[in-house]
């Protein structure tokens, strides 16, 4: 059998055309500058920024991270310089890279803050898409927007009216039915859903009888949550038609493949960036090799290719 030389890695998310399906997850890649010494940033399919809010935020009190079995907790609390400083100081570097820039946005007190952010970013060329972070576990809310189908529908509808840009809705795994929430996002006009944000979690120092992080609880990420994420991608894939961006403990090519097979059209590398800054680009090259070795011409032959067990 003659093997193909160059598989097609391109994928479409709404009106966004990605040259490859490997992104970096919000909050794990700063505003990209920190990774310039380690990888050629231009190779990435897209960059998702650290979440931006209307006003600057100091974030939560330290300690903000701790290691857990095959994972880590974080409670950064959306520390960011605010939208104006982001546009003035961080966006120029990102724009120069020439790859799609997806800006993650969140509200703190009032969902109307999403309106202000969407209006402002809609006008900016070089912002390719908006990711609605309605699932951050570190804001100490009783309920997240993405923990309620109706709230999710209303918020996404609100932002949808304000921007023609590609809209991605990032969802929390802390729900009874992920497909119900994903469906609400789809019906409200979201171009894609990103699954999953971190899982609410806690770790205790038993000698001190204190929580290991300053804000008591945080979000769990890393390989420990991967099976949870894969199942949620699969569940949502069975229910919705819009593309799914899969994430949760992807460390290497092997773990990224689980997500594609379960139904993700693209994937985001998150916690792995902390451990191996080259993880994302290694996955891109691994994906090319995998498609060639398995004689798959393009990603459509891989996405959602899960089969039932044979016996």
């Amino acid at each position: 059998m003659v093997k193909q030389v160059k598989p097609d890695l391109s994928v479409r998310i709404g009106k966004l055309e990605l040259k490859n399906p490997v992104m970096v997850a919000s909050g794990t890649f700063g505003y990209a500058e920190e990774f310039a010494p380690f990888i050629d940033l231009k190779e990435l399919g897209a960059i998702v920024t650290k979440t931006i809010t209307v006003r600057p935020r100091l974030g939560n009190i330290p300690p903000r991270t701790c290691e857990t079995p095959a994972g880590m907790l974080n409670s950064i609390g959306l520390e960011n310089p605010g939208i104006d400083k982001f546009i003035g100081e961080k966006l120029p570097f990102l724009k120069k890279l020439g790859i799609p820039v997806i800006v993650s946005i969140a509200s703190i007190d009032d969902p109307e803050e999403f309106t202000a952010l969407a209006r402002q970013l809609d006008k900016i060329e070089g912002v390719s898409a908006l990711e609605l972070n309605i699932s951050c576990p570190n804001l100490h809310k009783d309920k997240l927007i993405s923990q309620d189908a109706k709230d999710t529908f209303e918020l996404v509808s609100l932002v949808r009216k304000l921007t023609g840009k590609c809209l991605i809705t990032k969802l929390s795994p802390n729900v009874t039915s992920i497909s119900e929430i994903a469906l609400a996002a789809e019906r409200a006009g979201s171009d894609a859903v990103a699954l999953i944000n971190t899982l609410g979690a806690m770790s205790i120092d038993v000698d001190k009888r204190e929580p290991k992080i300053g804000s008591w609880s945080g979000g769990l990420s890393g390989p420990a949550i991967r099976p949870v994420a894969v199942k949620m991608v699969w569940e949502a894939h069975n229910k919705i038609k819009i593309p799914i961006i899969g994430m949760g403990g992807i460390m290497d090519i092997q773990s990224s493949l689980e997500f594609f097979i379960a139904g993700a059209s693209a994937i985001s590398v998150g916690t792995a960036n902390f451990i191996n800054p080259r993880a994302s680009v290694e996955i891109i090259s691994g994906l090319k090799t995998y498609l060639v070795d398995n004689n798959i011409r393009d990603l459509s032959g891989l996405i959602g290719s899960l089969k039932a067990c044979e016996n």
Partner: protein
Amino acid sequence: MGPGQIKAKIISNKRFKDNYWHLELESRLISGRALPGQFVNIKVSDDVEPLLRRPLSIHSANGSRVRLFYEALGMGTRVLSNRVPGEFLDVIGPLGNGFSLPGKGQGPGCQAAILVAGGMGVVPLIFLAKKIRSSRPLVLIGARTKNKILCAPEFKALGTAVKIATDDGSLGFKGRVTELLGQVLREAKSAKGLSIYACGPRPMLKAVGKIACENNIDSQLSLEEHMACGIGACLGCVVATQSGYRRVCKDGPVFSGKELTW
């Protein structure tokens, strides 16, 4: 020059007493770029457990060799202590902002720098002492007890004066190293042109910062903090400063004592 991510060969990895280990790595890139106070971030194994890298202060850099010094206490450092010469470690470095070296133009006989080390805090200060040995810094080393006093002979070999403080009085001054620092400053004729460089546990650093401020002396404090990324991306290892939270891994680990609000 910025950091690199490299596979560094282990030249040696030896226990020299109790749980204290010397690790020597081969890396011309890191050795060539390393400055006192900077650190490297090591993936101790290929496993997902422990997941995160372990930051270790650079003890010295010479030719193509980078020396590190660690205490095998937790899971990460215990795994590291099992790695053997000839194996390769995934290392990122050098990282962070190190110490600013003391100003030139000090008068003859003027003590330019006092180095204050608590416990494992000796590690980056050895590297610093090597760079500034011509200005004859005074080194104060503190620990709970005699057996926990580290690297005193190494400092002495560099020609620096060394004073020791132990909490239990088993060696040198009986009391905290910060009390010894207070005594040294009271006995000094003048604090003009003096800088204090310190590394150690946080309560010690806070006390050093306070003493330095009271005596109107500049202090540079090297902080330790749990890190996730080590390269400034995750905002996990922040410390409170006059200008808000700053990253220990990227803006530090060395901060001016005046800047920190803890």
